[in-house]
């Protein structure tokens, strides 16, 4: 199970049952902890719904008590190919 974290200004940004585009960062231990990916995903407040866990922080870094499960559908490549 992977652990992820997301920053939101408002919990409504985490609408359940919809495809969302989010920047999430990995909380898995190791050198790459806290690095980000842009992903298309679905989230649920039912922790058994999706394979991975998602932790939430608010706009100024406050940790939310809310916990979600998350399914990463695909990584979105927003960066222009010339920078690859």
């Amino acid at each position, binding site marked *: 199970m992977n652990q992820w974290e997301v*920053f939101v*200004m408002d919990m409504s940004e985490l609408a359940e049952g919809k495809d969302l585009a989010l*920047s999430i*960062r990995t909380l898995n231990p*190791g*050198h*790459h*902890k*806290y*690095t*980000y*990916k842009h992903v298309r995903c679905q989230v649920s407040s039912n922790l058994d719904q999706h394979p991975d866990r998602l932790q939430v*922080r608010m*706009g*100024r*870094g*406050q*940790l939310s008590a809310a916990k979600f499960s998350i399914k990463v559908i695909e990584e979105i490549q*927003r*960066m*222009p190919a010339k*920078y690859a």
Partner: protein
Amino acid sequence: MSKISAPRSNREFIEACVKAGDAVRIKQEVDWENEAGAIVRRACELGAAAPFMEKIKDYPGFSYFGAPLSTYRRMAISLGMDPASSLPEIGKEYLKRTNSEPIAPVLVDRKDAPCKENILLGADVDLCKLPVPLVHDGDGGRYVGTWHAVVTKHPVRGDVNWGMYRQMMFDGRTMSGAVFPFSDLGKQLSEYYLPRGLSCPFATAIGLSPLAAMAACAPSPIPEPELVGMLSGEPARLVKCETNDLEVPADAEIIIEGEICPDYKVEEGPFGEYTGYRTSPRDFRVTFRVNCITYRNNATMTISNMGVPQDEGQLLRSFSLGLELEKLLRSQGIPITGVYMHPRSTHHMMIVGVKPTYAGIAQQIAQLAFGSKLGPWFHMVMVVDDQTDIYNWDEVYHAFCTRCHPANGIHIYKNTTGTPLYPYATPHERKYSIGSKVLFDCLWPVDWDKTNDVPTTVSFKNVYPQDIQDRVLANWTAYGYPQTK
């Protein structure tokens, strides 16, 4: 100029600080995730010795040096002065050196540049190979650049800029940073690169000599490579980058080379800031794509942990902003006695001492200060007379509370340039960097009769004849009091 013996590199500086008792070697392993940041933060809040953390979890061979210039003692050491030097003495020396002839940097061969001891290119480039710390719990990311210089050059004018723009690691090859539109780099991007859709080459230098860091932090009009020479009394040693034409400090611990993307942005922040808060919102900000990393063997990353006073962001920025304003005001012939910014104001309040020889002098000072390049970094100017010791907060506070007329002495300037970091600003003002300024005029009006209208200060120094003062001082211990300074 007499010979200056200032530390020429971060390593020499650490040694000098350890020798003076102003740095401690931490031998036990420290975690890059929060623990290193917490050590630095506590050292800042206690005014303690700088932590030199020699063993970093997950990153053998690397070390951290935290809070490099968060005390005036370490600032004195960085200038090659006695650590016990007073603030006015350090300020006088800074002014003397920065008013001297510019000293051009020298370009050294890459074989003589320690920062080239390890070179990562192509698929090997990964910021995660560096011990990038999570400075504060809840930050938007691990911050690569907290005490560093982002080197850029104007493609037409050739102006070189070293600026301390915070940089967050987004992924192994991408950083995002806070570059305000009024900053040198912000102007360079908006006037040249962004309209043309061109990438701006950059190089981030980490683990600089303390005077190179001081130059990168100072809002001086002197190009930073020359300013380093003036501060240290000898040319700065620079070396060409591997992947662009920029020149970087050869003795830096780590160099990150790349390009600023004109057409792509990723999120940055939140981050614990010099105001003592997390204020600026997480936002899509200037994005740096990394093409090369070079570093010294056993490289040391420098960490500044910004938060409540006092850290080097507050101390050094207050110091240099105050002295650069002093230069500006003197250049205009204003009879000031000095300028001081207390670091605990988080460089928001300028205190200016002046001989009030004509009407409107406080307004003239405020307009020059707020209208200058320095202006966006502070929003309060307090003007006191030449009898008030600007370094003595008790005296300044007394003058403010008694001489500043609530209706006539407070002047507000609206819709000025601000920053998203101002804690008091509204969300709208933060988003668009809109500011407000205030002048506290603590001078007696020049049209008051000096004999009958201006109140007399009632103090030991001011109301007793000299012979009485001398007698009381001479007999002080005989009266039964302990000796005082």
